[in-house]
């Protein structure tokens, strides 16, 4: 099939005016391959696809949270000027269902509406304006139904059901787990604290909203260019929902303009595919507006969490209990998996002999909860790390010391009883924090607060699993080619949504093949050109794909050297070395160019592929099959410890984060710049989460429909973030690396909350910590009244 308009490989030779001409190596600050094209506006994102004869497709959304669909009248819409066609669920030939675990989300709603963002009709028009007009002419006959908007109410006996056919009612997934003697251990604790915490939605707020472009060719092949993290899964989902053979669907995935989990799963893909089947072979574009993205896109699950944490007088943790309610909205999406990861991390990175966990991912008629950097872990880390600070305060133990006393080490068992066999560097991270001036000089710093300012210092310890867990195969297939021009071309199976893993791939392959960036080429994920490789998610991209890539690059290297040894009459391949653009015989100094080598090799020899499947936990834990399927337990974890210094304004309640330090154990650092950017980005997103990102939903309707009302941090809101890597080699990781994509997002909510509590003596249970919440909390505390905003500590 021909290439869709303008889809080209990114060639490094046109990369940037300042050439980086050293052979690639591990641990160096190689400039990101995508940086120049992105900052100069040359990179072609999915949103940049247009082409001649373009058709615009758009969706009419329900606008009500729960209703029976009595009828959809498209007559006026179809007659509107510029309309090509208008479609409903009746035009969907396949299952009309999408989803990852439980496929419960219709492409176009059929029997009922389950949230305001449900797609009811798909309209194709000649241009955007005609599309807008036509969409306003879709008339829907919706019979309102009582909705459920609170997860705990949704679990009650007579609550309205979101999915009448779901055996568990509104409980999408219930997870229960006990370690040691469970709740019975409460009685053995010398101190026992309770806490409740409620975290809010978080919107991904990527620059590039959900978008794509699609076209069906004469042979019936459907190509979809889209902003996605999951091209290979999309292909299957689109095919199944639309009743197509997966082989006839091609997904092409340029760099997304941000994703953070919000593009982990189908957004526009199936709708676009359906549109392209009805456009008469013309290319179709769909691009959600910002408001549409806010309504229809997924969000971080709001969570309500109840904790009890018990210890001995010396600070040794003895018992933890957590009860979690995650609002997954109307569809599974990844809600069950998110809850399961939350349960796995609910006890924090600590050795706790007795644990009792209970969690619910609950269907409601609210917006769709889904994947978001951290994937359930930011919520529970926010809770457990505040419990730890409350305990430290109660026992008068230094918060870092309390964590050190209980920190997981290799060989220990995690909160769910998993024996930690991979590198476990939490102690090393805590050690750096304990000696850092932010921590050691904190009393002095605090006492220097200016008028009307209160200063506080807080910390948190974090861990983050990577990969898919024991059941779902976490695999990658790498492909490396010596092109006819003598370049090394890496076929990336995993999307680079901005984390920089495409660059890391070049760095890994280039370092093995001893080439400079000039000799390297990149092919971004494309189900017809690159090999199936799992999603860009779960802090797994460089770990899993990197391991596959090492195999492929080494195979290719061996082939080149062996063939060259024969040609140069060397005794063996050991006497040869690859150098940029050439192979050299070390003894004689004779050389062959890679271009020459390419011509002397057969096509089948010039391409090397390698498969890698990530190791899984071998532990036999008493974990329900359901939870195992949803990913519990993992076997590879990254760790970190964060400290922040904040200043709270007494007159306004405004919290200013003055300094931030993140110390992380994510294995060996391949590229310090990319590593740092992941930490910085994760922290910045976490700071938004704790300080201002307050996505409001009332009776299922979004109350913060745009960036004027939903605030995310701007540049002046984020101070310099110091990132220190504790480089501990992970023996299963490519060159010793572990995932760094998500871990940092978990730290800010508890670290800042702990710092705010340190500053003003008030513990908050609802987030974000807006100036209003903080000021009111401080006033209540001053007036000595008890309120639900504070005073969570109750002693047994």
């Amino acid at each position, binding site marked *: 099939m021909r290439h869709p308009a303008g889809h080209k490989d990114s060639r490094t030779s046109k990369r940037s005016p300042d050439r980086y001409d050293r052979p690639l190596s591990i641990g160096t600050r190689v400039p990101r391959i995508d940086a120049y094209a992105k900052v100069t506006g040359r990179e072609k994102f999915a949103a940049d696809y247009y082409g001649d004869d373009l058709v615009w497709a758009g969706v009419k959304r329900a606008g009500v949270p729960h209703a029976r669909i009595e009828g959809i009248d498209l007559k006026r819409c179809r007659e509107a000027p510029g309309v090509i066609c208008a479609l409903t669920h009746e035009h969907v030939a396949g299952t009309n269902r999408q989803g990852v675990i439980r496929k419960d989300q219709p492409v176009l709603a059929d029997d009922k509406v389950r949230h305001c963002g449900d797609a009811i009709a798909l309209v194709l028009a000649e241009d955007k304006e005609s599309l807008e007009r036509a969409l306003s002419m879709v008339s829907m006959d919706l019979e309102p139904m009582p909705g459920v908007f609170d997860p705990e109410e949704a679990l009650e006996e007579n609550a309205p059901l979101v999915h009448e056919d779901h055996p568990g009612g509104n409980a999408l997934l219930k997870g229960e787990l006990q370690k040691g003697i469970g709740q019975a251990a409460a009685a053995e604790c010398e101190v026992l604290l309770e806490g409740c915490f409620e975290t809010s939605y978080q919107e991904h707020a990527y620059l590039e909203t959900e978008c794509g472009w699609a076209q069906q060719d004469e042979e019936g092949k459907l190509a979809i260019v889209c902003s996605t993290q999951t091209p290979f899964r999309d292909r299957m989902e689109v095919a199944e929902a639309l009743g197509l053979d997966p082989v006839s669907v091609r997904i092409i995935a340029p760099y997304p303009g941000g994703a953070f989990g919000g593009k982990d799963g189908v957004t526009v893909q199936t709708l676009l595919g359906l549109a392209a089947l009805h456009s008469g072979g013309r290319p179709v574009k769909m691009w959600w507006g910002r408001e549409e993205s806010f309504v229809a896109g997924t969000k971080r699950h709001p969570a309500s969490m109840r904790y009890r944490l018990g210890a001995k007088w010396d600070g040794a943790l003895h018992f933890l209990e957590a009860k979690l309610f995650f609002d997954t909205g109307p569809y599974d999406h990844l809600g069950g998996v998110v809850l399961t990861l939350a349960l796995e991390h609910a006890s924090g990175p600590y050795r706790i002999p007795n644990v009792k966990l209970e969690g619910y991912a609950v269907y409601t008629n609210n917006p769709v909860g889904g994947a978001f950097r951290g994937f359930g872990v930011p919520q529970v880390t926010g809770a457990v790390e505040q419990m730890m600070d409350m305990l430290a305060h109660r026992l008068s133990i230094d918060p870092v010391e309390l964590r050190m006393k209980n920190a997981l080490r290799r060989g220990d068992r995690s909160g769910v009883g998993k024996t930690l066999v991979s590198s476990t560097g939490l102690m090393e991270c805590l050690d750096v924090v304990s000696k850092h001036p932010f921590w050691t000089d904190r009393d002095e710093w605090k006492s220097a607060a200016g008028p009307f300012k209160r200063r506080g210092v807080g910390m948190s310890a974090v861990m983050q699993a990577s990969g898919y867990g024991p059941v779902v195969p976490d695999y990658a297939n790498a492909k490396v080619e010596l092109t006819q021009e003598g370049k090394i071309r890496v076929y990336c199976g995993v999307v680079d949504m901005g984390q920089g893993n495409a660059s890391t791939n070049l760095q890994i392959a280039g370092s093995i093949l001893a080439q400079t960036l000039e000799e390297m080429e990149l092919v971004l994920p494309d189900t017809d050109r690159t090999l199936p490789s799992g999603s860009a998610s779960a802090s797994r991209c460089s770990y899993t794909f990197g391991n596959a890539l090492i195999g492929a690059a080494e195979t290719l290297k061996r082939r080149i050297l062996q063939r060259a040894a024969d040609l140069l009459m060397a005794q063996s391949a050991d006497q040869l070395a690859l150098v940029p653009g050439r192979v050299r015989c070390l003894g004689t100094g004779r050389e062959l160019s890679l271009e020459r080598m390419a011509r002397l090799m057969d096509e089948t020899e010039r391409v090397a592929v390698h498969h890698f499947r990530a190791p899984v936990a071998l532990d036999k834990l008493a974990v329900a099959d359901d939870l195992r399927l949803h990913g519990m337990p993992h076997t590879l974890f990254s760790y970190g410890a964060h400290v922040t210094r904040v200043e709270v304004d007494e007159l306004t309640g405004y919290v200013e984060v003055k300094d931030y330090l993140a110390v992380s154990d994510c294995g060996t650092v391949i590229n310090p710049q990319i590593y740092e950017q992941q930490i910085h980005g994760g922290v910045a997103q976490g700071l938004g989460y704790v300080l201002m990102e307050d996505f409001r939903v009332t009776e299922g309707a979004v109350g913060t429909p745009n960036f*004027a009302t939903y*605030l995310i941090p*701007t540049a002046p809101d984020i101070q310099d973030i110091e990132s220190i890597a504790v480089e501990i080699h992970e023996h299963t990781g490519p060159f010793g690396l572990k995932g760094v994509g998500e871990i940092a997002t978990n730290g800010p909510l508890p670290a800042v909350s702990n710092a705010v509590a340190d500053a003003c003596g008030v513990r908050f249970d609802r987030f974000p910590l807006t100036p209003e919440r903080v000021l009111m909390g401080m006033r209540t505390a001053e007036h000595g009244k008890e309120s639900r905003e504070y005073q969570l500590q109750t002693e047994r």
Partner: protein
Amino acid sequence: MPLRDVFLPRTLDDLWDTLEQRPESMVYAGGTDLFVRLRSGSIAPPSLVCLERLNEIKGVRDEGEFLFIGAATTHGFLLAHPLTVEHFPILAKALAVLASPPVRHMGTIGGNIVNASPAGDTLPPLYVLDAEIEISSRREVRRMPLADFIFGPGEVLLGKGEILTGVRVKKLTNENVHHYEKVGLRKGQACAVASLAALLRLSPSGVVEEARLAWGSVGPTVVTLTEVEHALTGEVLSHDTLKGLIPLVRDNVSPIDDVRASAEYRRIVAGQLLLRLQQYRWGGP
């Protein structure tokens, strides 16, 4: 957004012609408020007239005792202008926290005034400075105090065929405290949930000899409270003095609840912001 005609007159005469030929059109300068409303569909004028190229109403003119600021002067230009900084530090302080560099580069003082949002950052300073505005049409030029011009959120006394041509402000002589504080929910691009502009004359011993105060975002328009100004006059600028005035402020502002903050919060903060002034007693923050 549907396509529409945009006119770019270069002289006021051209402008008057255009406004006569296209009476249904709307004028804009930077468009940083207008385009938000256009995009949301809350307004849909058939055509637009841009004031950006009218040099006659751009820039700062020194008129001796007064300074005249053209309506189409951008916030960025004004913030960088030596005369603003020299004579109206209070305005410069507000401009420095208005939106962000790119929005200041486009947004104008005229737009901020005519938009008449209670959260407009130039408004509290202009109120305490007793700014006078100039309104022109083909036929006449009218002048009036800013406080008379704005009569509600987004509501101003502007007739058909008229535009705001500028603001005239008397240069300050004796005031030695120029204070502006904006409370937003973040640092950049933040809409004020409350703000306070204070212009004081303070004696060397810290006694308030003259006081002008104005609050933003705590009422339908900028709020000025002469009772508080009078009560402050003659007093030492101390914590106790200021604290004593908080109830008076709290009881006399009329904020609303919205997605950004509750009325109660705004009321409390409006009062407490006064306390910040005590730092000027010993020479400022």
